[in-house]
């Protein structure tokens, strides 16, 4: 197991490095004018701009820059921001943002996991009854209607009927977080509902459930003790992934409600050409993604001892 973990981690590091290298080189394809604000472009002479770029080492060939970047990375130095917060270390810029995203994300994850699983179980238990159809209609609605429209509807309803703030504000965090959290949970609840129901229905047809019923277990006990435990295994696989990704934030929700989080940081950084922030954020996203998948696999083996990550003997 230890050997397997080491191998997986090593592979992940290679993937992350590959990803950041690609992004690094892609960023260097853009003309150097992007390094300046429009104001600077007008004010500074060509010579001044040239000097500034040369001083920052941005005129060397991309590969020289790449190796310098690797060196810094080995020293755990992610560089400083150029345009978003001039001269501030990247880690500090990110540190100020990711808590905002993570708080919203974790709250809505908790809500949607709870609601989604409970509703999914109820749907499976009362399959083909009225409630089940309502639930299915809800999942179809969320899946088929563009998210942007769903968010807009939530915004209009929330702001007009409940007089909730339509923009996130630092002064009134609790009240202004309600609509973003509702938006985030609304969509992911549907996902958990759909899959819980699907796995539960699959499990319900198996023999051990018939045995449990014959033993005289109550329907509720069968549902929660037997079926849900088995049905939850495939769901658990994605849990660490979605927990870690809350750090990344949701781009659309954050832009929609002007939340100062990680989601907007990435696009801002790219469009304002803050290369060191883009690279750091990419490393963060990629590592979180890779780590999330790995932790998901581990969690799955913990919940269900029948699953093994290392194959025994010869399998195809």
């Amino acid at each position, binding site marked *: 197991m230890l050997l397997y973990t080491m191998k997986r981690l090593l592979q992940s590091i290679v*993937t992350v490095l590959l990803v950041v290298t*690609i992004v690094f080189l*892609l960023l260097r394809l*853009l003309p150097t004018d992007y390094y300046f604000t429009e104001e600077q472009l007008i004010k500074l002479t060509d010579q001044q701009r040239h000097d500034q770029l040369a001083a920052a080492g941005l005129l060397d060939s991309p590969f020289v820059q790449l190796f310098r970047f690797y060196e810094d990375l080995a020293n755990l130095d992610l560089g400083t921001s150029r345009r978003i917060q001039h001269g501030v270390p990247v880690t500090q810029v990110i540190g100020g943002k990711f808590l905002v995203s993570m708080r919203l994300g974790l709250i809505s994850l908790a809500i949607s996991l709870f609601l989604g699983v409970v509703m999914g179980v109820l749907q499976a238990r009362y399959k083909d009854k009225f409630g089940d159809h309502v639930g299915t209609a809800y999942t179809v609605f969320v899946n088929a209607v563009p998210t942007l429209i769903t968010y*807009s509807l939530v915004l209009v309803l929330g702001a007009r009927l409940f007089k909730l703030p339509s923009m996130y504000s630092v002064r009134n965090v609790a009240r202004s977080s309600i609509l973003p959290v509702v938006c985030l949970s609304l969509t992911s609840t549907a996902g958990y509902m759909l899959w819980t129901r699907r796995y539960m229905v699959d499990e319900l047809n198996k023999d051990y459930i018939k045995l449990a019923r014959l033993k005289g277990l109550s329907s509720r006990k069968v549902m929660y003790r037997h079926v849900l435990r088995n049905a939850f295994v495939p769901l658990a696989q994605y849990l660490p992934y979605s927990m870690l990704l809350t750090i990344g934030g949701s*781009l*659309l929700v954050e832009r*929609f409600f002007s939340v100062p989080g990680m989601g907007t940081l990435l696009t801002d950084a790219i469009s304002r050409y803050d290369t060191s922030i883009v690279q750091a954020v990419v490393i963060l996203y990629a590592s979180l993604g890779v780590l999330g998948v790995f932790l998901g696999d581990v969690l799955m083996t913990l919940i269900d001892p029948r699953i093994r990550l290392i194959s025994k003997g010869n399998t195809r």
Partner: protein
Amino acid sequence: MDMTTNNKPGLHPGGGGSAADDLFTFAEYRHAQAEFTASTEYSYWRSVWRNFLRNKPAVIMSFVFIILFIFTFVAGVIGNYRYDELRPDNKLIFLFPNDEFWFGTDNLGRDYWSQVWYAAQTSIKLAAIVGVGEILLGVVIGLVWGYVRSLDRFFTELYNVVNNVPTIIYMTLIALMIGQSFLIMAVSLICFGWLPTARNIRNMVFIYRDREYNLASRCLGTGLWRILWRNILPYLISVVVLRLALSIPSTIAYESTLSYLGLGLDVNTPSLGILLRNARSYFLDFPYLLIFPAVIVSVITVTFYLVGNAFSDACDPRNHL
């Protein structure tokens, strides 16, 4: 399966015994009988069609979808204003829907009716192009990826690398470096969209790749493409159809998200996302700016989603006969 009786003419029980040639003679080859399997009446697509028609709600929905789609073309003509003749007019801003402006006017005083229908049409066109492109590329590459073992490593690594970077990064870079237009948008969405489809197909191919009938087929010298096309793809049709059906609503959603963020289509190509982006600051006070595009696009995506699901069920051969 009537093979034994077909071979009867070739058998001579108890004849001679002097040489093998006397005992066994070649059976007469009849092409029709060799190809004869089960029910002659069975045709795959006809069964699909029959199954689909049996699902009444889906048939009704597909009518709704088709009529709406055609109407996006008609609407521009019957409205009081042509889309390309719209001019900003300060005196006409934020008029509620009335006789002249059926969907009201926007913040610049332009007719909203023509904008909404034109946007819906753009969104559907983009989604259709992207959906089909994604599926074609995804299915072809997914088949090869799953079947040819030596390519598995390469594509898996490619998938990991592309999948681990938020697509937003690529889209932003493309918007900055190449620009924004309908064509660029379509091509880049296809470029990033085929991977999940290919991955899905690859996992399905793994299930069928080493079945005995394929082993037999390989031993008989069947070529790569024929195996993929005739032996494996037919198993995957309902999956492919389902992915296509889901890809169109999700492309419409994704396009609106990207355009809302300013990374999708350019401002002069109105699409759902651009309309909602322009309306974002105003639709709390003028809800009609949200309601008309929202209802029209939602009806389109929901009907397509349900029809696609129904059609995919009809494609599953297990529901036939």
